[in-house]
């Protein structure tokens, strides 16, 4: 059914790597280890993006997910010292597995039943992107300029919001300032 070619071997190895790491995220007990497997999952997904010839997205995935969001998570783990040891399963563990399996089964069934070829009317063929990065740049600053600006504003607000949430309340801040003056 599936022929043995280099592309297939690479695809199946990367996707199994990704999925095994993703499952390990949920199964390991130490939060640090699950974070480690999460980073491996991100790297695996980046590999799949490269297979889909989305080079810029793959690099962005590495940069943002594996390089930045994982570090945010690291900070969160370190700022909440209990969490690194306490990563137990909730009482919904079995229901979680069940829901995951049911959802996966339904969706896989859906995908395999649907004929995307028929849906689009013509046979699907792979597009070869030669230079994605320039086109993406033009799209972002042309067609999607409003969304782009909104996203940047969203990021700014998220930054300010995160800082204002985590900052200690005003009185603590003033006390610390006074202490600093004393020293």
């Amino acid at each position, binding site marked *: 059914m599936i022929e043995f070619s280099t592309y297939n071997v690479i695809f199946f190895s990367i996707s199994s790597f990704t999925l095994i790491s993703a499952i390990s995220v949920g199964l390991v007990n130490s939060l640090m280890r699950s974070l480690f497997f999460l980073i491996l999952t991100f790297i695996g997904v980046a590999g799949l993006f490269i297979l889909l010839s989305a080079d810029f997205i793959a690099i962005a995935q590495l940069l943002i997910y594996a390089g930045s969001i994982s570090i945010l998570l690291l900070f969160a783990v*370190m*700022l909440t*010292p209990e969490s690194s040891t306490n990563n137990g399963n909730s009482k919904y563990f079995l229901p979680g597995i069940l829901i995951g399996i049911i959802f996966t089964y339904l969706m896989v069934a859906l995908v395999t039943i649907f004929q995307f070829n028929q849906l689009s009317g013509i046979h699907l063929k792979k597009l070869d992107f030669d230079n994605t990065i320039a086109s993406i740049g033009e799209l972002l600053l042309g067609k999607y300029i409003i969304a782009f600006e909104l996203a940047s504003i969203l990021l700014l607000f998220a930054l300010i919001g995160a800082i204002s949430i985590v900052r200690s309340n005003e009185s603590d801040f003033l006390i610390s300032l006074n*202490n600093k003056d004393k*020293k």
Partner: protein
Amino acid sequence: MTVQENYELNIGPQHPSTHGVFRIKVSMNGETIEDLDMIVGYLHRSMEKLSEERTYTQNIPFTDRADYLAAMSNNLGYCLAIEKLANVIPPQRATVLRVIFAELQRIASHAMANGTLVSDAGAWQTPLLYMFREREKILDLFEMTCGARLTTNYMRIGGVAFEPPAEFYPLLNDLLGELPDKIDEYMDLLSTNEIFIARTKNVGIINPKDAINASLSGPALRGSGVPWDLRKADPYCDYDNYDFDVPLGLIGDSYDRFMVRMFEVKESVKIIKQALNNLPLGMHKTQIPLALRPEPGQLYFRTEGPRGELGYFVVSDGGPAPYRLHIRPPSLINLSLLKQLAIGSSLPDAIVTLGSIDIVVGEIDR
């Protein structure tokens, strides 16, 4: 690690910056030191108790090993104390030789102190090794005079052990000629280095009142601007006949202590030059009885060691051995202020402060 909870860090007994087997137990909040506990005693050798079993002369090697970076100064303080107790008067030549060697030892000790301070501030040992070069030459001079480099055992009750050999003086003159230039070179490298200034300026500020209340002495006290030097305040060895200045720091931070040491080296060079010019001829030692038996009595004698006021409290019961010998180590007293300085500062600042106070663990634990 956490926002709220402190965690403990054991700095030492083996740590690059504790300058020996000395342990600081710090309680930290992030990078800030919240509490600190100094634990000494890893190098305790029971010197003071052992001295009660030995004659006065046999105790001199113990003083070598108390402050192993300033053996000559320790010898000098001890010998002066016993001489005063036993009414022994050393010959004039011996006194001048003592000044020469004590000041050479001060230069060597300050070179070591400042070198390790810069190493603690993170320079990759280059200034330390530069300053070791000068220290090495001084230790060579010691070696050719008394055969030992570190634990010299050179001073005797009633004089010094040996006359320096003939080749000692030209080498000493060479060293004195080049030392001020070398000091200027290090000042070029360090005192205007912005990183070094940023690391030491306004770090570990001791204000003069605190310094006096904590009974600090030596460069740690003078760095705070308190003009107190026993060589001038309570002269011994005819220090009042020498012309030299006492450098003082401006605000009492680590940088000032560093600079005070640097300038003290220059002043020491001045003192040695004057001593060499006025070196009288004569005996280097008076004869004293083999088993010296001072009259019963007690005495506290203090000298200005490289690290501060080095005091010897001796009690004699008329026997050949001291009834009680107590050393007032400047390092231990100076160290007592570290807790006040370090709490609230960050770990790197505390390390630099510790380096600038310049402790020797052999002296603290004795």
